[in-house]
């Protein structure tokens, strides 16, 4: 039983760093942009957040720095795809490689170091010893309904979705597709980097190169799984988080299976879930996802 509770507890903790980028990407894709650069943004957030926390002895400044860097980096992406009309997949991949390289450069002196991590708080309750999380975990889970509300109950959300479906129609309705896409990209960049920072400052307390291990891409998969709905993204993030923790628990028990195979487990599981749940997804996808908008002339 205690094994089960700690699995649940761990799943929630590990769901957070994947939920941040998933929510951001959901908003970005609802505005019509596929961003393959999430992985780079997460790494950038993880290393810069760690470095700043190490230098200032304040993990919150680390999170803040990560958020700012993610925002700026993703505005570059937005500028490429909105104003320079670059292909979104190419621009995303470029952003990813930029993030990988930049994070390695920033993080180089900090490999093997420990930085101050985010404090943990528990909601009052009988299991509070087990269920203690840093504030970012609570923020991640609160953001999901907030984003749902933003997308489906506000004027901004309506316009954002319209841009993702058909920017020409949105323009005809008096909306600026470019502005909407910049805002969406800013949100997504911030969240992806905060997700990365949560990994290094909320979970491991260390930095190592490539530590996000493909989470940026899993987040894109989860966006599809969640059918661009922030509330369903919670489910996806929990499944992935659960798989990660399960793999850690199995490794801790010294099960006679190659650790490399176990490392693979969360990803295989995510692919399987996508296979089972992902059918018929085509009709929900924003209609102009990935397309360059050329304006009216």
């Amino acid at each position: 039983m205690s094994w089960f509770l700690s699995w649940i507890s761990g799943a929630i903790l590990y769901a957070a760093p994947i939920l941040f980028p998933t929510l951001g990407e959901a908003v970005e894709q609802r505005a019509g942009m596929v961003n393959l650069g999430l992985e780079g943004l997460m790494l950038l957030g993880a290393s810069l957040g760690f470095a700043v926390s190490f230098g200032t002895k304040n993990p919150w400044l680390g999170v803040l720095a990560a958020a700012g860097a993610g925002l700026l980096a993703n505005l570059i992406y937005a500028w490429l795809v909105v104003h320079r009309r670059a292909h979104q997949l190419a621009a995303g991949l470029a952003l990813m490689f930029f993030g990988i390289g930049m994070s390695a450069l920033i993080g180089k002196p900090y490999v093997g170091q420990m930085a101050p991590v985010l404090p943990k708080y528990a909601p009052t309750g009988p299991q509070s010893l087990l269920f203690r999380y840093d504030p970012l975990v609570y923020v991640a889970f609160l953001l999901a309904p907030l984003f749902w509300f933003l997308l489906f109950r506000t004027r901004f959300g309506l316009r954002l979705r319209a841009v993702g479906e058909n920017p020409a129609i949105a323009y005809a309705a008096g909306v600026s597709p470019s502005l909407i896409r910049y805002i969406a990209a800013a949100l997504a960049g911030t969240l992806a980097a905060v997700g990365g920072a949560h990994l290094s400052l909320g979970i491991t307390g260390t930095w190592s190169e490539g530590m996000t291990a493909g989470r940026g891409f899993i987040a894109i998969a989860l966006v599809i799984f969640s059918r661009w709905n922030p509330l369903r993204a919670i489910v996806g993030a929990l499944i992935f988080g659960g798989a990660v923790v399960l793999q850690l628990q199995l490794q801790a028990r010294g099960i006679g299976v190659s650790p490399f195979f176990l490392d693979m487990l969360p990803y295989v599981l995510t692919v399987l879930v996508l296979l089972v749940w992902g059918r018929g997804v085509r009709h929900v996808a924003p209609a102009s996802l990935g397309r360059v908008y050329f304006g009216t002339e």
Partner: protein
Amino acid sequence: MAETPVLRLVDITKRFPGVLANDRVNFDLLPGEIHALLGENGAGKSTLVKIAYGFYQADSGEIHVHGKKVEIRSPRDARRLGIGLVFQGFTLIPAMTVAENVALFLAELPWLVRPKDLRKTIWEASQRYGLELDPATPVWQLSVGEQQKVELLKLLLAKARILIFDEPTKVLVPHEVENLFRVFASLREDGYSLVFITHKLREALTCADRITVMRQGRVVGTVRPEEASEESLLQMMFGERLVEVAKAGTGRVPGEPILELRNVCTKPIGTAPGLEDVNLTVRAGEIVGVAGVSGNGQRELGDAILGLLRITRGRKIFLGEDATHWPPRRLIQRGVAFVPEDPLAMAVVPWFTVLENLALLDPRRFSRLGGLALDWSGVRQLLRAGFAKLGLNPLPERARAGTLSGGNLQRLTLVRELNRPYHLVVGLYPTRGLDVRSANAVRQALLSAREEGKGVLLISEDLNELFSLSDRIVVMLKGRIVGEFRPEEADLTEVGRVMTGAGVVHA
């Protein structure tokens, strides 16, 4: 004219790369009138109204609203001035509900969208003009006629007083057109001013207070319907007399079956229906017309015949052989010709030249040295002979297909498809979006194919076209064939009703 026009366009000029779309165009709209803008494709009608709506910016010229000169830099400006435009082909987002689509265009949409309030507003407005709609329905579930209503609601709720419709009747069946004109009339009573674009003479004559005719980017003239006739309007539109399409021959006996479909079914894809138990025979020397509101399985029927869509049940027999699962290549070789709706999407490669596109379908015929070279002079010969057969001047052989107009592209497709041995022509909306002259060239080609004893399957949503060309017309609804008519025994309205599922079905 004593009244101040609500909208006046003065000397509007707009140039697109290679085209002078509007050349010093003058146009005015009086309060409470319905003003038809008539002209063939590419006459510059759409460009003109899009300039009035701020979607395009004019290179020069002035816009006056209620007698005052205004600057319209974006649709937002136009909407603020009370100008609303229903785009051709609609500006609805299929994935969103009626309410969301309307809300997007609301002038005073609050920061917080309350679905309940929104639905109430829409419900009230829709009751007033007899445009009953359920606000919570996603738009993709609506028929074209209903979508038209949503477009209208959008304008009305956005407080537009000048309503512009870009070819509103293009996709409607006859009784829906009647309904729309009735709504137009009641809007005029309420003091709205309307502009509507059409290339159908009869519509302009029945519904408008004034008709302005455009040709090649210029205004030819403005007339009142009581002073005009179809004849005189045609003259204005084309500046010359048109070749009429020969009437359908009567009393002919069709020959052997060329294509037979027996209980053919296909799988539905997305929101499009699959075919269900379709039985259809096309015989030598007959034109079988397929009518239906678009999206009721006509495209799937064409695709299934051409081998582009897998047939899940039933059989397809071509010239007595079971062709159910033949790949497209084999069908083409055995003699199926295809004239698609949008040649750029379905038949030609835009960045290939005219010659290259002609050689594309049948490279073996022109290959020399075992495929290492192509016999370009042979292709050139085909180009000349093919166009001569259609009674047209050949296209410039080095022109890239992407730079040709829709009518010329369709001619190119015809020459290619109909100048090789074939037995069956499948026309999938072959005249959609073409002007009268280009459309007539296509029709003439189909008629001469019939004269030569070929089978012709013509899928179209232009009922007039189907009635004048077809020997038989079948009607499709939701992937089934729900009626069959002989054009000489049926009338347009009756077929229109069966198309929308409103009529009694005759076996």
